[in-house]
Protein backbone atom coordinates (compact mmCIF):
# COMPACT_ATOMS: atom_id res chain seq x y z
CA UNK A 1 0.00 0.00 0.00
CA UNK A 2 2.72 2.44 0.97
CA UNK A 3 4.67 1.71 -2.19
CA UNK A 4 1.56 2.65 -4.15
CA UNK A 5 1.25 5.94 -2.28
CA UNK A 6 4.92 6.71 -2.75
CA UNK A 7 4.82 5.83 -6.42
CA UNK A 8 1.50 7.50 -7.18
CA UNK A 9 3.13 10.66 -8.57
CA UNK A 10 5.32 8.61 -10.90
CA UNK A 11 2.31 6.64 -12.14
CA UNK A 12 0.64 9.98 -12.84
CA UNK A 13 3.78 11.13 -14.65
CA UNK A 14 3.74 8.07 -16.89
CA UNK A 15 0.01 8.47 -17.56
CA UNK A 16 0.36 12.16 -18.41
CA UNK A 17 3.35 11.54 -20.65
CA UNK A 18 1.49 8.81 -22.52
CA UNK A 19 -1.54 11.09 -22.95
CA UNK A 20 0.69 13.88 -24.23
CA UNK A 21 2.56 11.67 -26.68
CA UNK A 22 -0.67 10.03 -27.88
CA UNK A 23 -2.25 13.41 -28.57
CA UNK A 24 0.84 14.63 -30.39
CA UNK A 25 1.00 11.61 -32.68
CA UNK A 26 -2.70 11.09 -33.44
CA UNK A 27 -4.35 14.51 -33.38
CA UNK A 28 -4.04 16.50 -36.59
CA UNK A 29 -5.21 19.85 -35.19
CA UNK A 30 -2.28 22.19 -34.56
CA UNK A 31 -3.80 23.58 -31.37
CA UNK A 32 -4.23 20.04 -30.09
CA UNK A 33 -0.60 19.28 -30.88
CA UNK A 34 0.40 22.30 -28.82
CA UNK A 35 -1.84 20.98 -26.05
CA UNK A 36 -0.10 17.63 -26.26
CA UNK A 37 3.30 19.28 -25.89
CA UNK A 38 2.01 21.21 -22.88
CA UNK A 39 0.68 18.02 -21.28
CA UNK A 40 4.03 16.30 -21.80
CA UNK A 41 5.64 19.33 -20.24
CA UNK A 42 3.42 19.09 -17.16
CA UNK A 43 4.31 15.42 -16.90
CA UNK A 44 8.00 16.28 -16.80
CA UNK A 45 7.39 19.08 -14.31
CA UNK A 46 5.40 16.76 -12.06
CA UNK A 47 8.24 14.26 -12.28
CA UNK A 48 10.79 16.85 -11.16
CA UNK A 49 8.62 18.10 -8.30
CA UNK A 50 7.96 14.57 -7.05
CA UNK A 51 11.70 13.97 -6.97
CA UNK A 52 12.01 16.92 -4.61
CA UNK A 53 10.00 15.29 -1.84
CA UNK A 54 12.01 14.33 1.21
CA UNK A 55 10.51 12.64 4.25
CA UNK A 56 10.22 15.00 7.25
CA UNK A 57 11.99 17.81 5.47
CA UNK A 58 10.79 21.38 5.96
CA UNK A 59 10.07 23.81 3.17
CA UNK A 60 13.13 25.93 2.57
CA UNK A 61 11.63 29.28 3.59
CA UNK A 62 13.46 31.21 6.25
CA UNK A 63 10.28 32.31 8.08
CA UNK A 64 8.46 30.12 10.59
CA UNK A 65 10.08 26.90 9.40
CA UNK A 66 9.50 23.91 11.66
CA UNK A 67 12.50 21.80 12.56
CA UNK A 68 15.98 22.46 11.31
CA UNK A 69 16.12 20.11 8.34
CA UNK A 70 15.24 21.98 5.22
CA UNK A 71 14.88 20.46 1.79
CA UNK A 72 17.41 21.54 -0.80
CA UNK A 73 15.06 23.23 -3.25
CA UNK A 74 16.90 22.23 -6.42
CA UNK A 75 14.02 20.26 -8.05
CA UNK A 76 11.63 23.10 -7.29
CA UNK A 77 14.02 25.56 -8.92
CA UNK A 78 14.34 23.25 -11.91
CA UNK A 79 10.57 22.95 -12.23
CA UNK A 80 10.12 26.68 -12.00
CA UNK A 81 12.72 27.28 -14.69
CA UNK A 82 11.13 24.66 -16.87
CA UNK A 83 7.71 26.29 -16.37
CA UNK A 84 9.14 29.67 -17.37
CA UNK A 85 10.67 28.14 -20.49
CA UNK A 86 7.38 26.35 -21.12
CA UNK A 87 5.53 29.68 -21.11
CA UNK A 88 7.93 31.02 -23.72
CA UNK A 89 7.70 27.97 -25.98
CA UNK A 90 3.91 27.80 -25.67
CA UNK A 91 3.62 31.48 -26.56
CA UNK A 92 5.86 30.97 -29.58
CA UNK A 93 3.98 27.88 -30.70
CA UNK A 94 0.61 29.57 -30.39
CA UNK A 95 1.87 32.66 -32.24
CA UNK A 96 3.04 30.46 -35.08
CA UNK A 97 -0.30 28.61 -35.12
CA UNK A 98 -2.09 31.96 -35.42
CA UNK A 99 0.22 32.92 -38.29
CA UNK A 100 -0.31 29.59 -40.03
CA UNK A 101 -4.06 30.09 -39.68
CA UNK A 102 -3.79 33.57 -41.14
CA UNK A 103 -1.84 32.32 -44.14
CA UNK A 104 -3.76 29.16 -44.92
CA UNK A 105 -7.10 29.46 -43.12
CA UNK A 106 -6.51 26.01 -41.64
CA UNK A 107 -5.37 24.65 -38.31
CA UNK A 108 -5.16 21.09 -39.56
CA UNK A 109 -1.60 19.76 -39.76
CA UNK A 110 -2.21 18.04 -43.08
CA UNK A 111 -4.30 20.71 -44.79
CA UNK A 112 -2.12 23.61 -43.66
CA UNK A 113 1.04 21.88 -44.86
CA UNK A 114 2.69 23.68 -47.76
CA UNK A 115 6.13 22.04 -47.98
CA UNK A 116 6.98 18.38 -48.29
CA UNK A 117 9.31 16.00 -50.06
Amino acid at each position, binding site marked *: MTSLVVNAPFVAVAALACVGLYIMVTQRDLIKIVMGVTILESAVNLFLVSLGYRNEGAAPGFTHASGTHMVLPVPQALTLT*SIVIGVATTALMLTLVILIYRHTGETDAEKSRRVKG
Partner: protein
Amino acid sequence: MDALTTHAPILAIAVPLAAAFLTPLVGRLGAKVRNVFVVAILLFVEFLVFTVVRQVLTAGIQVYTLGATAAGLAIPESHIVPVRIILEVDGLGAFLGIIAATVALSGAVYSLSAMRGESGQDRFYTLLLLLTASMLGIQYTGDLFNLFVFLEILSISGAALAAFRTRFVDAVEGGFKYVIVSTVSALLVLLSIGIFYGQYNLLNIAAVSDAMRYTLLDKIALALLIGALLTKSGAVPSHWWVPDTYTPAPAGTSPIIYASSLTCLGAALRIVFSLYGVKMTVSAVGWLVIVAGLLSMFIGVTMALRQTDIKRLMTYHVISQEGYMLLGFGVGLAVLGDPQAVAAYGREAIAGGLFHVLNNAFFKGLLLLTGEALFFALGTRDLDRMGGMGRTMKWTCAFFIIGALAISGIPPMNGFASKLMIYETSYQLNPMLAIVALIVSIMTLASFTKVFQAAFTGPGLPEYRDVKPVPLSMKVGMGVLAAGTLFFSLFPQLVLDTIVYPATDALLNQTMYIGVIMGGS
Protein backbone atom coordinates in the same frame (compact mmCIF):
# COMPACT_ATOMS: atom_id res chain seq x y z
CA MET B 1 44.02 41.27 -19.00
CA ASP B 2 44.48 38.59 -16.38
CA ALA B 3 40.94 39.10 -15.10
CA LEU B 4 39.67 38.88 -18.65
CA THR B 5 41.34 35.50 -19.10
CA THR B 6 39.82 34.18 -15.89
CA HIS B 7 36.34 35.40 -16.72
CA ALA B 8 36.48 34.67 -20.45
CA PRO B 9 34.23 31.54 -20.36
CA ILE B 10 31.34 33.25 -18.60
CA LEU B 11 31.81 36.50 -20.50
CA ALA B 12 31.53 34.62 -23.79
CA ILE B 13 28.03 33.55 -22.70
CA ALA B 14 26.93 36.57 -20.66
CA VAL B 15 28.04 39.32 -23.05
CA PRO B 16 25.89 38.20 -26.01
CA LEU B 17 23.04 37.37 -23.61
CA ALA B 18 23.08 40.85 -22.07
CA ALA B 19 23.67 42.45 -25.46
CA ALA B 20 20.63 40.61 -26.81
CA PHE B 21 18.43 42.48 -24.35
CA LEU B 22 20.29 45.74 -24.89
CA THR B 23 19.78 45.58 -28.66
CA PRO B 24 16.19 46.93 -28.63
CA LEU B 25 17.35 49.79 -26.39
CA VAL B 26 20.33 50.53 -28.64
CA GLY B 27 18.06 50.20 -31.66
CA ARG B 28 16.24 53.35 -30.58
CA LEU B 29 19.40 55.30 -31.41
CA GLY B 30 19.17 54.28 -35.04
CA ALA B 31 19.82 51.31 -37.29
CA LYS B 32 23.48 52.20 -37.96
CA VAL B 33 24.34 52.37 -34.25
CA ARG B 34 22.63 49.06 -33.64
CA ASN B 35 24.45 47.32 -36.48
CA VAL B 36 27.80 48.57 -35.24
CA PHE B 37 26.86 47.47 -31.71
CA VAL B 38 25.91 43.94 -32.78
CA VAL B 39 29.01 43.43 -34.88
CA ALA B 40 31.23 44.85 -32.14
CA ILE B 41 29.70 42.49 -29.58
CA LEU B 42 30.18 39.50 -31.86
CA LEU B 43 33.79 40.50 -32.53
CA PHE B 44 34.35 40.74 -28.79
CA VAL B 45 32.79 37.28 -28.35
CA GLU B 46 35.11 35.96 -31.04
CA PHE B 47 38.04 37.41 -29.13
CA LEU B 48 36.81 35.85 -25.88
CA VAL B 49 36.35 32.48 -27.53
CA PHE B 50 39.92 32.53 -28.78
CA THR B 51 41.09 33.58 -25.31
CA VAL B 52 39.34 30.51 -23.92
CA VAL B 53 40.91 28.32 -26.60
CA ARG B 54 44.37 29.61 -25.74
CA GLN B 55 43.77 29.01 -22.04
CA VAL B 56 42.47 25.49 -22.61
CA LEU B 57 45.39 24.59 -24.86
CA THR B 58 48.01 25.94 -22.49
CA ALA B 59 46.53 25.33 -19.04
CA GLY B 60 44.17 22.38 -19.52
CA ILE B 61 40.47 22.22 -18.70
CA GLN B 62 39.07 25.55 -17.55
CA VAL B 63 36.62 25.49 -14.64
CA TYR B 64 34.59 28.56 -13.85
CA THR B 65 32.30 28.52 -10.83
CA LEU B 66 29.34 30.86 -10.68
CA GLY B 67 28.83 32.73 -7.45
CA ALA B 68 31.86 31.37 -5.59
CA THR B 69 34.62 33.52 -4.14
CA ALA B 70 37.12 32.10 -6.62
CA ALA B 71 36.66 30.64 -10.07
CA GLY B 72 38.11 27.24 -9.19
CA LEU B 73 35.99 26.41 -6.12
CA ALA B 74 33.59 23.98 -7.73
CA ILE B 75 32.78 22.03 -4.57
CA PRO B 76 31.57 24.29 -1.73
CA GLU B 77 33.46 24.36 1.56
CA SER B 78 30.29 23.65 3.58
CA HIS B 79 29.21 20.62 1.46
CA ILE B 80 25.53 21.51 1.89
CA VAL B 81 25.15 21.72 -1.87
CA PRO B 82 27.05 18.93 -3.68
CA VAL B 83 28.54 20.85 -6.59
CA ARG B 84 28.03 24.46 -7.58
CA ILE B 85 26.83 25.57 -10.98
CA ILE B 86 29.98 25.50 -13.04
CA LEU B 87 31.28 26.01 -16.52
CA GLU B 88 33.77 23.37 -17.55
CA VAL B 89 35.51 24.10 -20.84
CA ASP B 90 37.60 21.29 -22.24
CA GLY B 91 39.11 20.85 -25.70
CA LEU B 92 35.76 19.95 -27.24
CA GLY B 93 33.93 22.96 -25.81
CA ALA B 94 36.69 25.31 -26.91
CA PHE B 95 36.75 23.74 -30.38
CA LEU B 96 33.00 24.05 -30.91
CA GLY B 97 33.08 27.54 -29.44
CA ILE B 98 35.25 28.70 -32.35
CA ILE B 99 32.65 27.37 -34.79
CA ALA B 100 29.73 29.03 -32.99
CA ALA B 101 31.38 32.44 -32.65
CA THR B 102 32.84 32.58 -36.17
CA VAL B 103 29.69 31.43 -37.94
CA ALA B 104 27.56 33.81 -35.88
CA LEU B 105 29.86 36.68 -36.76
CA SER B 106 29.82 35.99 -40.49
CA GLY B 107 26.07 35.39 -40.44
CA ALA B 108 25.47 38.70 -38.67
CA VAL B 109 27.72 40.61 -41.08
CA TYR B 110 25.95 38.98 -44.00
CA SER B 111 22.57 39.95 -42.54
CA LEU B 112 23.47 43.64 -42.27
CA SER B 113 22.56 44.31 -45.89
CA ALA B 114 20.54 41.15 -46.54
CA MET B 115 18.01 42.24 -43.93
CA ARG B 116 17.75 45.79 -45.23
CA GLY B 117 14.12 46.64 -45.74
CA GLU B 118 12.78 43.97 -43.38
CA SER B 119 10.74 45.15 -40.42
CA GLY B 120 11.58 44.37 -36.79
CA GLN B 121 15.34 44.18 -37.25
CA ASP B 122 15.93 44.89 -33.55
CA ARG B 123 14.19 41.64 -32.70
CA PHE B 124 16.16 39.85 -35.41
CA TYR B 125 19.50 40.80 -33.87
CA THR B 126 18.19 40.07 -30.37
CA LEU B 127 17.36 36.52 -31.46
CA LEU B 128 20.67 36.17 -33.28
CA LEU B 129 22.63 37.14 -30.18
CA LEU B 130 20.48 34.85 -28.02
CA LEU B 131 21.21 31.96 -30.37
CA THR B 132 24.94 32.72 -30.16
CA ALA B 133 24.84 32.86 -26.37
CA SER B 134 22.93 29.59 -26.14
CA MET B 135 25.35 27.79 -28.46
CA LEU B 136 28.31 28.89 -26.38
CA GLY B 137 26.38 28.01 -23.22
CA ILE B 138 25.78 24.43 -24.33
CA GLN B 139 29.41 23.96 -25.18
CA TYR B 140 30.89 25.54 -22.10
CA THR B 141 28.56 24.37 -19.36
CA GLY B 142 29.48 21.63 -16.93
CA ASP B 143 25.95 21.30 -15.60
CA LEU B 144 23.18 19.12 -17.00
CA PHE B 145 20.37 21.48 -16.15
CA ASN B 146 22.10 24.45 -17.74
CA LEU B 147 22.49 22.27 -20.80
CA PHE B 148 18.71 21.91 -20.91
CA VAL B 149 18.11 25.63 -20.38
CA PHE B 150 20.50 26.60 -23.16
CA LEU B 151 19.00 23.90 -25.38
CA GLU B 152 15.59 25.51 -24.90
CA ILE B 153 16.92 29.02 -25.55
CA LEU B 154 18.51 27.61 -28.70
CA SER B 155 15.21 26.08 -29.80
CA ILE B 156 13.15 29.18 -29.13
CA SER B 157 15.53 31.66 -30.76
CA GLY B 158 16.24 29.29 -33.65
CA ALA B 159 12.54 28.75 -34.35
CA ALA B 160 11.77 32.44 -34.09
CA LEU B 161 14.61 33.20 -36.51
CA ALA B 162 13.50 30.53 -38.97
CA ALA B 163 9.97 31.95 -38.91
CA PHE B 164 11.19 35.54 -38.97
CA ARG B 165 9.91 36.42 -42.44
CA THR B 166 6.33 35.76 -41.42
CA ARG B 167 5.03 36.95 -44.77
CA PHE B 168 6.12 33.62 -46.26
CA VAL B 169 3.93 30.70 -45.34
CA ASP B 170 6.78 28.19 -45.53
CA ALA B 171 8.79 30.23 -43.01
CA VAL B 172 5.98 30.08 -40.46
CA GLU B 173 5.47 26.40 -41.10
CA GLY B 174 9.18 25.62 -40.80
CA GLY B 175 9.43 27.56 -37.55
CA PHE B 176 6.41 25.76 -36.12
CA LYS B 177 7.75 22.32 -36.99
CA TYR B 178 11.12 23.21 -35.51
CA VAL B 179 9.71 24.52 -32.25
CA ILE B 180 7.45 21.49 -31.78
CA VAL B 181 10.14 18.91 -32.51
CA SER B 182 12.83 20.65 -30.50
CA THR B 183 10.55 21.32 -27.53
CA VAL B 184 9.60 17.67 -27.35
CA SER B 185 13.21 16.56 -27.61
CA ALA B 186 14.25 19.11 -24.99
CA LEU B 187 11.53 17.74 -22.69
CA LEU B 188 12.93 14.25 -23.17
CA VAL B 189 16.34 15.63 -22.19
CA LEU B 190 14.78 17.18 -19.09
CA LEU B 191 13.15 13.85 -18.24
CA SER B 192 16.52 12.12 -18.32
CA ILE B 193 18.04 14.90 -16.22
CA GLY B 194 15.27 14.21 -13.70
CA ILE B 195 16.24 10.53 -13.76
CA PHE B 196 19.84 11.44 -12.94
CA TYR B 197 18.81 13.77 -10.14
CA GLY B 198 16.47 11.17 -8.68
CA GLN B 199 19.25 8.60 -8.54
CA TYR B 200 22.32 10.58 -7.62
CA ASN B 201 21.05 13.95 -6.29
CA LEU B 202 23.50 15.57 -8.65
CA LEU B 203 23.28 17.72 -11.74
CA ASN B 204 26.92 18.29 -12.52
CA ILE B 205 28.11 16.31 -15.55
CA ALA B 206 31.43 15.33 -14.00
CA ALA B 207 29.82 14.43 -10.66
CA VAL B 208 27.04 12.36 -12.24
CA SER B 209 29.61 10.63 -14.41
CA ASP B 210 31.66 9.85 -11.33
CA ALA B 211 28.64 8.37 -9.53
CA MET B 212 27.23 6.59 -12.60
CA ARG B 213 26.42 2.92 -12.03
CA TYR B 214 24.74 2.29 -15.41
CA THR B 215 21.52 1.01 -13.94
CA LEU B 216 18.33 0.31 -15.87
CA LEU B 217 17.24 3.91 -15.34
CA ASP B 218 20.55 5.17 -16.67
CA LYS B 219 20.04 3.07 -19.79
CA ILE B 220 16.60 4.61 -20.31
CA ALA B 221 18.07 8.07 -19.78
CA LEU B 222 20.78 7.30 -22.33
CA ALA B 223 18.17 6.24 -24.89
CA LEU B 224 16.19 9.43 -24.26
CA LEU B 225 19.27 11.61 -24.55
CA ILE B 226 20.58 9.94 -27.71
CA GLY B 227 17.17 10.02 -29.38
CA ALA B 228 16.53 13.65 -28.47
CA LEU B 229 19.96 14.99 -29.35
CA LEU B 230 20.23 13.06 -32.61
CA THR B 231 16.87 14.51 -33.57
CA LYS B 232 18.06 17.99 -32.69
CA SER B 233 21.19 17.51 -34.76
CA GLY B 234 19.13 16.28 -37.70
CA ALA B 235 20.10 12.63 -38.19
CA VAL B 236 17.94 10.18 -40.13
CA PRO B 237 15.38 8.79 -39.23
CA SER B 238 14.13 11.95 -37.57
CA HIS B 239 15.64 14.47 -39.94
CA TRP B 240 12.31 15.61 -41.37
CA TRP B 241 12.32 19.05 -39.78
CA VAL B 242 15.74 19.99 -41.15
CA PRO B 243 14.80 20.94 -44.74
CA ASP B 244 11.53 22.54 -43.67
CA THR B 245 13.26 24.79 -41.15
CA TYR B 246 16.53 25.69 -42.86
CA THR B 247 15.08 26.48 -46.25
CA PRO B 248 13.08 29.60 -45.31
CA ALA B 249 15.53 30.85 -42.65
CA PRO B 250 16.19 34.52 -43.50
CA ALA B 251 19.47 36.18 -44.51
CA GLY B 252 22.53 34.96 -42.67
CA THR B 253 20.71 32.81 -40.15
CA SER B 254 20.73 29.44 -41.87
CA PRO B 255 24.46 28.86 -41.15
CA ILE B 256 23.90 29.91 -37.56
CA ILE B 257 20.99 27.49 -37.18
CA TYR B 258 23.26 24.90 -38.76
CA ALA B 259 25.94 25.71 -36.19
CA SER B 260 23.28 25.24 -33.52
CA SER B 261 22.55 21.77 -34.89
CA LEU B 262 26.26 21.01 -34.72
CA THR B 263 26.18 22.29 -31.15
CA CYS B 264 23.51 19.71 -30.33
CA LEU B 265 25.76 17.10 -31.90
CA GLY B 266 28.49 18.38 -29.58
CA ALA B 267 26.12 17.99 -26.64
CA ALA B 268 25.45 14.40 -27.73
CA LEU B 269 29.21 13.78 -27.79
CA ARG B 270 29.52 15.27 -24.33
CA ILE B 271 26.78 12.95 -23.05
CA VAL B 272 28.09 9.84 -24.74
CA PHE B 273 31.82 10.29 -24.10
CA SER B 274 32.09 12.37 -20.94
CA LEU B 275 28.95 11.38 -19.06
CA TYR B 276 28.70 7.67 -19.89
CA GLY B 277 32.04 6.81 -21.47
CA VAL B 278 33.19 3.26 -21.02
CA LYS B 279 30.53 2.58 -18.40
CA MET B 280 27.96 1.86 -21.10
CA THR B 281 28.00 -0.90 -23.72
CA VAL B 282 29.98 1.18 -26.17
CA SER B 283 29.81 -1.23 -29.11
CA ALA B 284 26.01 -1.21 -29.15
CA VAL B 285 25.80 2.56 -28.92
CA GLY B 286 28.62 2.90 -31.44
CA TRP B 287 26.86 0.73 -34.00
CA LEU B 288 23.61 2.58 -33.35
CA VAL B 289 25.37 5.81 -34.23
CA ILE B 290 27.07 4.21 -37.25
CA VAL B 291 23.75 2.97 -38.63
CA ALA B 292 22.17 6.39 -38.08
CA GLY B 293 25.17 7.89 -39.86
CA LEU B 294 24.92 5.57 -42.87
CA LEU B 295 21.20 6.18 -43.20
CA SER B 296 21.67 9.94 -42.88
CA MET B 297 24.37 9.96 -45.51
CA PHE B 298 22.53 7.91 -48.06
CA ILE B 299 18.97 9.15 -47.63
CA GLY B 300 20.18 12.72 -47.29
CA VAL B 301 22.14 12.71 -50.51
CA THR B 302 19.57 10.81 -52.57
CA MET B 303 16.84 13.22 -51.46
CA ALA B 304 19.14 16.15 -52.21
CA LEU B 305 19.69 14.99 -55.79
CA ARG B 306 15.97 15.33 -56.50
CA GLN B 307 15.38 18.80 -55.07
CA THR B 308 14.84 21.81 -57.31
CA ASP B 309 14.74 24.39 -54.49
CA ILE B 310 18.35 25.49 -54.11
CA LYS B 311 18.34 25.88 -50.33
CA ARG B 312 16.29 22.75 -49.79
CA LEU B 313 18.85 20.84 -51.82
CA MET B 314 21.60 22.22 -49.64
CA THR B 315 19.75 21.38 -46.43
CA TYR B 316 19.48 17.75 -47.50
CA HIS B 317 23.25 17.86 -47.73
CA VAL B 318 23.24 19.07 -44.14
CA ILE B 319 21.71 15.71 -43.26
CA SER B 320 24.06 13.82 -45.53
CA GLN B 321 27.18 15.46 -44.11
CA GLU B 322 25.82 14.86 -40.61
CA GLY B 323 26.07 11.19 -41.57
CA TYR B 324 29.83 11.45 -42.16
CA MET B 325 30.35 12.97 -38.74
CA LEU B 326 28.19 10.32 -37.09
CA LEU B 327 30.10 7.61 -38.96
CA GLY B 328 33.39 8.95 -37.61
CA PHE B 329 32.10 9.27 -34.07
CA GLY B 330 30.36 5.89 -34.25
CA VAL B 331 33.54 4.13 -35.32
CA GLY B 332 35.41 5.79 -32.47
CA LEU B 333 32.64 4.91 -30.04
CA ALA B 334 32.33 1.29 -31.10
CA VAL B 335 35.96 0.58 -30.23
CA LEU B 336 36.11 2.81 -27.16
CA GLY B 337 36.48 -0.19 -24.85
CA ASP B 338 39.54 -1.47 -26.69
CA PRO B 339 42.59 0.77 -26.08
CA GLN B 340 44.58 -0.80 -28.93
CA ALA B 341 41.86 -0.22 -31.49
CA VAL B 342 41.40 3.32 -30.18
CA ALA B 343 45.07 3.99 -30.71
CA ALA B 344 45.08 2.30 -34.12
CA TYR B 345 42.06 4.02 -35.65
CA GLY B 346 39.44 5.03 -33.05
CA ARG B 347 41.14 8.30 -32.19
CA GLU B 348 41.64 9.14 -35.84
CA ALA B 349 37.98 8.37 -36.54
CA ILE B 350 36.80 10.80 -33.88
CA ALA B 351 39.33 13.38 -35.02
CA GLY B 352 38.05 12.93 -38.58
CA GLY B 353 34.49 13.44 -37.40
CA LEU B 354 35.41 16.56 -35.47
CA PHE B 355 37.45 17.94 -38.36
CA HIS B 356 34.45 17.33 -40.58
CA VAL B 357 32.28 19.26 -38.11
CA LEU B 358 34.68 22.20 -38.34
CA ASN B 359 34.94 22.03 -42.13
CA ASN B 360 31.21 21.68 -42.57
CA ALA B 361 30.41 24.65 -40.37
CA PHE B 362 32.47 26.70 -42.78
CA PHE B 363 31.80 25.34 -46.26
CA LYS B 364 28.23 24.26 -45.63
CA GLY B 365 27.53 27.64 -44.03
CA LEU B 366 29.12 29.25 -47.09
CA LEU B 367 26.90 27.24 -49.44
CA LEU B 368 23.77 28.12 -47.49
CA LEU B 369 24.77 31.78 -47.71
CA THR B 370 25.28 31.58 -51.48
CA GLY B 371 21.84 29.99 -51.78
CA GLU B 372 20.38 32.85 -49.79
CA ALA B 373 22.34 35.35 -51.94
CA LEU B 374 20.68 33.93 -55.07
CA PHE B 375 17.31 34.26 -53.35
CA PHE B 376 18.16 37.83 -52.37
CA ALA B 377 19.11 38.76 -55.94
CA LEU B 378 16.51 36.82 -57.91
CA GLY B 379 13.59 36.58 -55.50
CA THR B 380 13.29 32.85 -56.13
CA ARG B 381 14.90 29.70 -54.81
CA ASP B 382 13.62 27.56 -57.65
CA LEU B 383 16.52 26.14 -59.65
CA ASP B 384 14.20 25.60 -62.62
CA ARG B 385 13.85 29.34 -62.99
CA MET B 386 17.56 30.15 -62.67
CA GLY B 387 20.32 30.23 -65.22
CA GLY B 388 23.45 32.08 -66.26
CA MET B 389 23.94 33.75 -62.90
CA GLY B 390 27.70 33.21 -63.12
CA ARG B 391 27.71 36.11 -65.59
CA THR B 392 26.33 38.71 -63.19
CA MET B 393 27.03 37.40 -59.67
CA LYS B 394 30.72 36.62 -60.02
CA TRP B 395 31.62 36.69 -56.33
CA THR B 396 28.72 34.50 -55.35
CA CYS B 397 29.69 32.07 -58.10
CA ALA B 398 33.30 31.94 -56.88
CA PHE B 399 32.20 31.33 -53.29
CA PHE B 400 29.81 28.65 -54.48
CA ILE B 401 32.60 26.86 -56.36
CA ILE B 402 34.82 26.91 -53.26
CA GLY B 403 32.04 25.50 -51.10
CA ALA B 404 30.91 22.91 -53.66
CA LEU B 405 34.45 21.61 -54.27
CA ALA B 406 35.03 21.38 -50.54
CA ILE B 407 31.80 19.57 -49.73
CA SER B 408 32.28 17.05 -52.53
CA GLY B 409 35.77 16.24 -51.27
CA ILE B 410 37.77 17.30 -54.31
CA PRO B 411 41.45 16.83 -53.39
CA PRO B 412 43.02 20.14 -52.53
CA MET B 413 40.03 21.12 -50.34
CA ASN B 414 39.49 20.47 -46.63
CA GLY B 415 36.44 18.29 -47.26
CA PHE B 416 38.76 15.76 -48.84
CA ALA B 417 41.09 15.77 -45.84
CA SER B 418 38.38 15.08 -43.28
CA LYS B 419 36.55 12.58 -45.49
CA LEU B 420 39.85 10.77 -46.08
CA MET B 421 40.28 10.34 -42.34
CA ILE B 422 36.76 8.96 -42.06
CA TYR B 423 37.19 6.56 -45.01
CA GLU B 424 40.49 5.23 -43.74
CA THR B 425 39.27 4.59 -40.22
CA SER B 426 35.83 3.23 -41.03
CA TYR B 427 37.46 0.88 -43.54
CA GLN B 428 39.38 -0.69 -40.69
CA LEU B 429 36.21 -1.35 -38.73
CA ASN B 430 34.22 -2.62 -41.70
CA PRO B 431 35.05 -2.04 -45.40
CA MET B 432 31.37 -1.67 -46.31
CA LEU B 433 31.17 1.56 -44.30
CA ALA B 434 33.89 3.21 -46.37
CA ILE B 435 32.30 2.04 -49.64
CA VAL B 436 28.95 3.62 -48.76
CA ALA B 437 30.73 6.81 -47.72
CA LEU B 438 32.57 6.95 -51.08
CA ILE B 439 29.38 6.43 -53.09
CA VAL B 440 27.69 9.20 -51.12
CA SER B 441 30.62 11.49 -51.84
CA ILE B 442 30.20 10.91 -55.57
CA MET B 443 26.50 11.68 -55.37
CA THR B 444 27.29 14.85 -53.43
CA LEU B 445 29.50 16.01 -56.29
CA ALA B 446 26.73 15.09 -58.74
CA SER B 447 24.11 17.14 -56.96
CA PHE B 448 26.34 20.21 -56.70
CA THR B 449 27.19 19.86 -60.37
CA LYS B 450 23.46 20.03 -60.94
CA VAL B 451 23.16 23.24 -58.93
CA PHE B 452 26.15 24.77 -60.67
CA GLN B 453 24.84 23.83 -64.09
CA ALA B 454 21.32 25.03 -63.41
CA ALA B 455 22.06 28.27 -61.57
CA PHE B 456 25.41 29.61 -62.73
CA THR B 457 26.12 28.31 -66.22
CA GLY B 458 24.16 28.69 -69.41
CA PRO B 459 23.18 31.80 -71.35
CA GLY B 460 22.14 34.94 -69.47
CA LEU B 461 18.38 34.70 -69.10
CA PRO B 462 16.40 37.74 -70.27
CA GLU B 463 14.27 37.93 -67.07
CA TYR B 464 17.36 38.45 -64.90
CA ARG B 465 19.10 40.97 -67.16
CA ASP B 466 19.19 43.71 -64.51
CA VAL B 467 20.13 41.57 -61.54
CA LYS B 468 22.88 43.25 -59.53
CA PRO B 469 25.69 41.56 -57.62
CA VAL B 470 25.05 41.25 -53.88
CA PRO B 471 26.04 44.15 -51.57
CA LEU B 472 29.41 44.36 -49.86
CA SER B 473 28.43 43.13 -46.41
CA MET B 474 27.03 39.90 -47.85
CA LYS B 475 30.29 39.35 -49.72
CA VAL B 476 32.23 39.95 -46.50
CA GLY B 477 30.04 37.46 -44.62
CA MET B 478 30.59 34.81 -47.28
CA GLY B 479 34.25 35.80 -47.58
CA VAL B 480 34.96 35.06 -43.91
CA LEU B 481 33.66 31.53 -44.30
CA ALA B 482 35.39 31.06 -47.67
CA ALA B 483 38.69 32.25 -46.20
CA GLY B 484 38.26 29.76 -43.35
CA THR B 485 37.58 26.97 -45.83
CA LEU B 486 40.68 27.82 -47.88
CA PHE B 487 42.81 28.06 -44.76
CA PHE B 488 41.71 24.64 -43.53
CA SER B 489 42.32 23.28 -47.03
CA LEU B 490 45.89 24.46 -47.20
CA PHE B 491 46.96 23.68 -43.65
CA PRO B 492 44.95 20.66 -42.47
CA GLN B 493 47.76 19.25 -40.36
CA LEU B 494 48.20 22.55 -38.53
CA VAL B 495 44.49 22.79 -37.74
CA LEU B 496 44.35 19.15 -36.68
CA ASP B 497 47.31 19.49 -34.34
CA THR B 498 46.20 22.80 -32.83
CA ILE B 499 42.53 22.30 -32.11
CA VAL B 500 41.13 19.01 -33.41
CA TYR B 501 43.40 16.54 -31.63
CA PRO B 502 43.07 18.35 -28.26
CA ALA B 503 39.29 18.12 -28.68
CA THR B 504 39.57 14.41 -29.53
CA ASP B 505 41.75 13.73 -26.53
CA ALA B 506 39.36 15.67 -24.31
CA LEU B 507 36.58 13.33 -25.44
CA LEU B 508 38.65 10.21 -24.92
CA ASN B 509 40.00 11.22 -21.52
CA GLN B 510 36.94 10.85 -19.34
CA THR B 511 38.88 10.51 -16.07
CA MET B 512 40.45 13.90 -16.67
CA TYR B 513 37.05 15.50 -17.20
CA ILE B 514 35.79 14.02 -13.92
CA GLY B 515 39.03 14.52 -12.02
CA VAL B 516 39.19 18.26 -12.61
CA ILE B 517 35.97 18.70 -10.64
CA MET B 518 35.89 15.77 -8.24
CA GLY B 519 39.62 15.71 -7.46
CA GLY B 520 41.81 12.64 -7.59
CA SER B 521 43.12 10.78 -10.64
